């Protein structure tokens, strides 16, 4: 009953989808991390004009399903005259989601540092910028790595959602093959396997890094 032939014949097409999956993931990770760091530091700002909007953006992007954000950007924004294609819509929605979560990771990492570090830096006469650059951020970066890697894995998996609005990547490639061949089980299992092959090493490595954190700071 299980048709291996269908898998072998369509594997190249699936792999062509993987290219887009990885491209989308990388784009989102880079954009999201960059935006997220800015948002994260803004959340800690003493200036209300910076802090409140940052908090708002982070809450909206973190507390709503990514798919909703994709739908809003792809289907809803044309009402404002902004018409984006499927790939850019997915990229922007996911980048916002990534940014919101990265901001939370940044805030969490900085909050987890002992207040004594802030005290010591201040008592030595450092101003805010010096304190952040030389004392706080170097230590916070170390603590951001495990949750950030978890986020990256999640983002790779979430690229599958782009298929729902029609963007071409691995999942969409699978759907197209199934439309032609009707072998849902075989194809989806292979698609799942490909995602697994991409994500598992990342999870494994994340766990190792987490364990390593016991030594040092």
């Amino acid at each position, binding site marked *: 009953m299980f048709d291996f032939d269908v898998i072998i014949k369509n594997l190249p097409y699936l792999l062509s989808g993987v290219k887009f999956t990885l491209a989308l993931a990388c784009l989102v990770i880079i954009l999201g991390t960059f935006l997220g760091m800015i948002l994260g530091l803004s959340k800690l700002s003493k200036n209300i004009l910076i802090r409140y909007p940052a908090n708002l953006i982070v809450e909206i992007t973190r507390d709503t399903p990514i798919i909703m954000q994709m739908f809003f950007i792809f289907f809803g924004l044309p009402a404002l005259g902004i018409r984006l294609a499927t790939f850019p819509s997915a990229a922007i929605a996911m980048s916002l989601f990534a940014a919101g979560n990265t901001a939370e990771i940044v805030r969490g990492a900085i909050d987890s540092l*002992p207040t*004594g*570090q802030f*005290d*010591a*830096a*201040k*008592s*030595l*006469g*450092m*101003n805010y910028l*010096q304190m952040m650059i*030389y*004392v706080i951020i*170097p*230590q916070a970066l*170390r603590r951001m790595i495990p949750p950030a890697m978890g986020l990256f894995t999640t983002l790779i998996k979430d690229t599958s959602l782009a298929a729902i609005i029609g963007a071409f990547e691995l999942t969409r490639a699978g759907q197209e093959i199934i439309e032609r061949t009707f072998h849902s089980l075989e194809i989806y299992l292979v698609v799942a396997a490909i995602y697994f092959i991409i994500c598992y090493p990342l999870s494994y490595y994340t766990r190792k890094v987490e364990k390593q954190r016991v*030594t*040092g*700071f």
Partner: protein
Amino acid sequence: MIEARDIYKSFGKVQALNGVTTTIQKAEVVVIIGPSGSGKSTFLRCLNHLEKIDRGSIIIDGIPLTDSKTDIHKVREEIGMVFQQFNLFPHLSVLRNITLAQIKVRKRSSEQAERIARDLLRKVGIPEKADNYPFQLSGGQQQRVAIARALAMQPRIMLFDEPTSALDPEMIGEVLEVMKNLAKEGMTMVVVSHEMGFAKEVADRVIFMDEGKIVEEGTPDRLFDHAREERTRTFLSRVLK
């Protein structure tokens, strides 16, 4: 040198400081004792503006701390602080811990900063640990590095917030030794501590605080042996066993 007048400070509903007034002279060594919650650490942290006071004034060498025109970072360059938890920067080597603020805040060259750092490490007795990282050092060694780090800024005043309270007994002595030498050299020091022996030996004045107020102050001999206030005597009898 330090003039504190009518300091009031509260944390939410808790009134930590209830009108504290005292003056600390140049080269004076003042030890503050008292039960936990008496406000002694809070008072100390107000002196370098780690805590903002609600009411009152603090004037350091003629510069009012609470004046908005005062550059608090410049004032902090002249005040060194040593913490109960050491607060060394774990991601930097011992040497870098001591040179970082020198270079970035005092704007010294890295050669000069390193020279001063190594001199101070020698002074506190651990010159060989310059390239180690804090986690490789014992508590006593870490605290001595913390003292060197504060001294490297060449401050006019040194504040110590229970510097030995987090140390194992065998290591308290080495840190107190460094502090005693510092006092003998004429540094202006304000020390919050439970080490009565240290106070007896080195303090010019001992201040007893309770419930956010200065209850009594005087020379160590007078205070320890002839305390005037009931509360002082009760506290001392419990601590000096």
